[in-house]
């Protein structure tokens, strides 16, 4: 218990007997005890008030509290005077505790902050501050510890708990060569890692910075409150002075009655409840989102997210997994196995995602000694010497070049044709698959009132149509070059829509992310350009996080509005009743401290303690 709490407790312990004595007819003893109670709670407030006065700030809340309470004493309302001081002090303590508490409630994030890193230099381990680690340093992480800096596993295998980063509770395996993100917890084995980034560029530092600085982008309601607070106190003080003077001087009404009314008004002159509860609400809302792996960059973004009516998303990597899979093998005169083997060997030297898909499917080790010269024909395919045979692997155009006309092909997938020594050997089909939750996420968005969902892709119309059909997107634009995507997006920004969200992986669509009303970067905090341009960063790959982000924004804003409406209504009601003489000090204390407490407790709800969001659309389509 700190000094201030002790003072307030002593004040309270004196206040109770002082009040009882007052009402049982012991005026002088009561007054003595009440003055002691007043001094106990009021000393610190008086010191603060004196300091404010020295700087010429007469509208300071401490000073106004002194005036209101001391004034009450002077006109013979000692019990109320102490009550004002005492409950004002309790209120301030409560506010501080509540703010502290909600600061801690994002402690899952604060805990991620590493204190030191065990680096290995010259075969020895040193504990150094994370800021001193340079790229290329080796460092070790024991089971149970958090990864302090983004790195690549050099030795050891383990599984990682990434819940604090992505909200994903399933552990992820990590072995030699895998890159790991700081902030995840090493669950099982010791790992030796090599630093890929310095601390300030690592995931954990970026997440912390994003959450802590998100408050800089203030919501409309926060701006309103700041504005309101600026004029509220001076206005109430002027009104109180008028109430104290005009009826007495101009109409000769009794001074004690009107001064009392003015003092009651001063008790309600602080806008504290609002000024604290509204930013607190948004802070808790941002905390709730980040707990779920969604980094929302401030209340201003929540304002826009809540009114999303159009969502434009990139296909590859956002709606789909972005990895290609082999979906069909159609041999012609050779066995399936042979077709795949020749295709895999001829594509062996290429890193194209399609080549990787074929090689991965083939699975067996490729005997590289059998592979001769390989020639890439841009836009057509590859010609490779394999085991003394010439293998052509590519599209219909490549087949045509060697005289194989009119090959069959499916329209909605990528067809890879294979010819062995100029003889057609069949085709392999490759396609990208939607993420398992894309369809549900899109249905959920529609249920939330997003009335236009558009998919953009560089792929062919046929393959875009196939994906659109599976996930339930009605509108798409295909065969777009990267720069066309931005132009398409701008077509939708014609002012006829309320709020347009753009969702992309952030790697090559940073301009679109920056241009949209709300730019959302998916799949982690890895890409610098994306994070800088994005308003929302989704740490994992789930499209369901988009409706969740909208839901969190709506919940948070609702709570902020409740606080504003409730606090303002009670305050104005109390002010009005005070002028009419219908509200006494006690009601004013409630309107000040009580309302503060209620608004703050309500604001903390934005953290959504028990709320788990899941896309609730029926019949999830699993792909």
């Amino acid at each position, binding site marked *: 218990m700190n000094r201030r709490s002790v003072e307030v407790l002593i004040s309270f312990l004196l206040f109770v007997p002082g009040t009882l004595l007052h009402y049982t007819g012991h005026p002088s003893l009561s007054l003595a005890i009440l003055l002691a109670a007043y001094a106990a709670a009021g000393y610190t407030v008086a010191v*603060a008030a004196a*300091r404010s006065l020295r*700087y010429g*700030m007469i509208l300071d*809340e401490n000073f106004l509290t002194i005036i209101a309470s001391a004034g009450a004493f002077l006109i013979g309302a000692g019990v109320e005077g102490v009550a004002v001081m005492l409950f004002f002090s309790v209120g*301030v303590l409560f*506010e*501080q505790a509540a*703010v502290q508490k*909600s*600061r801690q409630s994002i402690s899952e994030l604060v805990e991620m902050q590493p204190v030191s890193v065990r680096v290995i230099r010259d075969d020895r381990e040193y504990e150094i501050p994370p800021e001193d680690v340079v790229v290329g340093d080796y460092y070790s992480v024991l089971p149970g510890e958090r990864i302090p800096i983004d790195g690549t596993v050099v030795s050891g295998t383990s599984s990682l708990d990434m819940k604090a980063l992505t909200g994903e509770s399933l552990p992820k395996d990590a072995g030699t060569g895998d890159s790991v993100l700081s902030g995840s917890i090493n669950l099982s084995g010791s790992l030796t890692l090599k630093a890929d980034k310095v601390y300030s560029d690592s995931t954990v530092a970026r997440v912390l910075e994003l*959450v*802590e*600085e998100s*408050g*800089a982008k*203030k919501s409309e309601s926060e701006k309103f409150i*700041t504005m309101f*607070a*600026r004029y509220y106190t001076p206005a109430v003080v002027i009104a109180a002075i008028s109430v104290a003077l005009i009826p007495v001087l101009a109409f000769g009404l009794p001074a004690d009655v009107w001064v009392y009314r003015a003092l009651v008004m001063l008790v309600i002159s*602080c*806008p*504290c409840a609002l*000024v*604290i509860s509204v*930013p*607190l609400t*948004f*802070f808790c809302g941002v905390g709730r989102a980040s707990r779920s792996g969604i980094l929302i960059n401030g209340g201003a973004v929540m304002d826009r997210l809540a009114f999303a009516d159009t969502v434009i998303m990139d296909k590859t990597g956002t709606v789909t997994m972005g990895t290609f899979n082999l979906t069909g093998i159609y041999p012609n005169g050779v066995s399936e196995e042979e077709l795949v083997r020749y295709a895999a060997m001829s594509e062996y030297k290429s890193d194209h995602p399609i080549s990787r898909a074929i090689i991965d499917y083939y699975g067996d080790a490729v005997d590289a000694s059998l592979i001769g010269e390989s020639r890439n024909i841009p836009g057509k395919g590859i010609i490779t010497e394999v085991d003394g045979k010439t293998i052509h692997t590519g599209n219909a155009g490549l087949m045509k070049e060697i005289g194989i006309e009119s090959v069959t092909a499916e329209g909605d997938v990528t067809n890879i044709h294979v010819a062995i020594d100029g003889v057609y050997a069949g085709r392999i089909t490759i396609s990208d698959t939607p993420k398992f939750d894309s369809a549900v996420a899109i249905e959920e968005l529609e249920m939330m009132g997003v009335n236009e969902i558009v998919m953009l892709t560089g792929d062919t119309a046929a393959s875009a149509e196939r994906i659109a059909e599976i996930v339930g997107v009605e509108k798409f634009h295909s065969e777009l070059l990267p720069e066309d995507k931005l132009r398409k997006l701008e077509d939708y920004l014609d002012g006829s829509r309320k709020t347009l969200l753009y969702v992309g992986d952030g790697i090559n669509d940073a301009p679109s992310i920056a241009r949209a009303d709300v730019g959302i970067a998916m799949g982690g905090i890895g890409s610098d350009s994306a994070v800088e341009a994005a308003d929302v960063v989704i740490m994992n790959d789930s499209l369901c996080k988009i409706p969740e982000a909208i839901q969190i924004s709506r919940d948070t804003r609702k709570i902020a509005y409740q606080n504003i409406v409730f606090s303002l209504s009670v305050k104005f009601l109390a002010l009005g009743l005070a002028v009419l003489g219908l509200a006494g000090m006690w009601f004013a204390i409630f309107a000040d401290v009580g309302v503060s407490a209620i608004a703050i407790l309500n604001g903390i709800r934005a953290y959504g303690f028990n709320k788990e969001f899941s896309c609730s659309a029926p019949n999830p389509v699993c792909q």
Partner: protein
Amino acid sequence: MKFTYRLEGLHCGNCGGKIEREISKIKEVESVSVIFMSQRLIINADEAHIDKIEDEARKIIKKIASDAVMSGR
């Protein structure tokens, strides 16, 4: 350039707004933001003027919220 400071001991929400308003009046400050909840002060300004701005900001903070301490950059 963006400079971020900690504002420890900032207890009064209203003071945050006042500090923000006062610091924004310093000529060399391009933009300023006080984040009450995470106790941060973010100043955007030319690096050449930041020492002077820092001194003035400290004075403003002392005047408005004497308990608050500005630290770090």
